[in-house]
């Protein structure tokens, strides 16, 4: 018989899948930013298709992430609130903080080179899209780094 997942486990799974969703979303936005760097043509069309695929993938990942928790909620099984504090929730919060720090430092660095960047003549949308992708990718990578497998933990089971 399949064992029912506890609320805490479901929320942990949600965090992991949200991180994957953010990674795909970040890559999608990087591709959309790259589209603006190339002239309309074959490369541009390819980037368009690839960014469409990653966009669909990130949407599917989001649905896959939310579904187990939604299922518990629909089935009224999310009665007892799980303890809000967990290792993965903590790692996710830390990842958002790390992402903010890295983005803040990168933006500061970019501002120092603003004069050179003005010469590139890129539209404002390029920087906004790139920045959004950068924040999503750094947050997800930070999460994967913070939650990387530790063999010692499994030995304790």
């Amino acid at each position, binding site marked *: 018989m399949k064992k029912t997942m506890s609320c805490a486990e479901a929320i942990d799974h949600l965090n992991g899948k949200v991180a994957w969703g953010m990674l795909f979303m970040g890559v999608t936005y990087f591709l959309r930013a790259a589209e603006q760097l190339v002239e309309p043509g074959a490369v541009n069309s390819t980037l368009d298709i690839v960014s469409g695929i990653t966009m669909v993938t990130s949407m599917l990942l989001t649905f896959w992430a939310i579904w187990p928790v939604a299922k518990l909620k629909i089935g009224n099984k999310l009665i007892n609130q799980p303890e809000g504090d967990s290792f993965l929730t903590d790692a996710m919060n830390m990842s958002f903080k790390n992402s903010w720090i890295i983005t803040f430092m990168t933006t500061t660095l970019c501002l120092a080179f603003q004069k050179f960047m003005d010469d590139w003549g890129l539209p404002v949308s390029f920087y906004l899209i790139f920045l959004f992708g950068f924040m999503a990718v750094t947050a997800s990578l930070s999460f994967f780094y913070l939650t990387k497998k530790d063999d010692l*933990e499994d030995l304790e089971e």
Partner: protein
Amino acid sequence: MSAQLDNRIRVFRAEKRMSQSDLAEAIGVSRKTISTIEVGRFVPSTIIALKIANYFDAPVEEIFSLKVSEG
């Protein structure tokens, strides 16, 4: 001087012959949370620490202690 949180959860678990998953389910957290607390990778909230202590029917300082090191 730096302090690190030490714990004896594994000892208490062994006494009760229970797995990390059993303890996790009993106090409403995930197995990963218990395993990372045990190896000192995650510092639990006061609420989780008290829940663990309550579950084992022991004072919290018997399960958790501070390991102070110079430097």
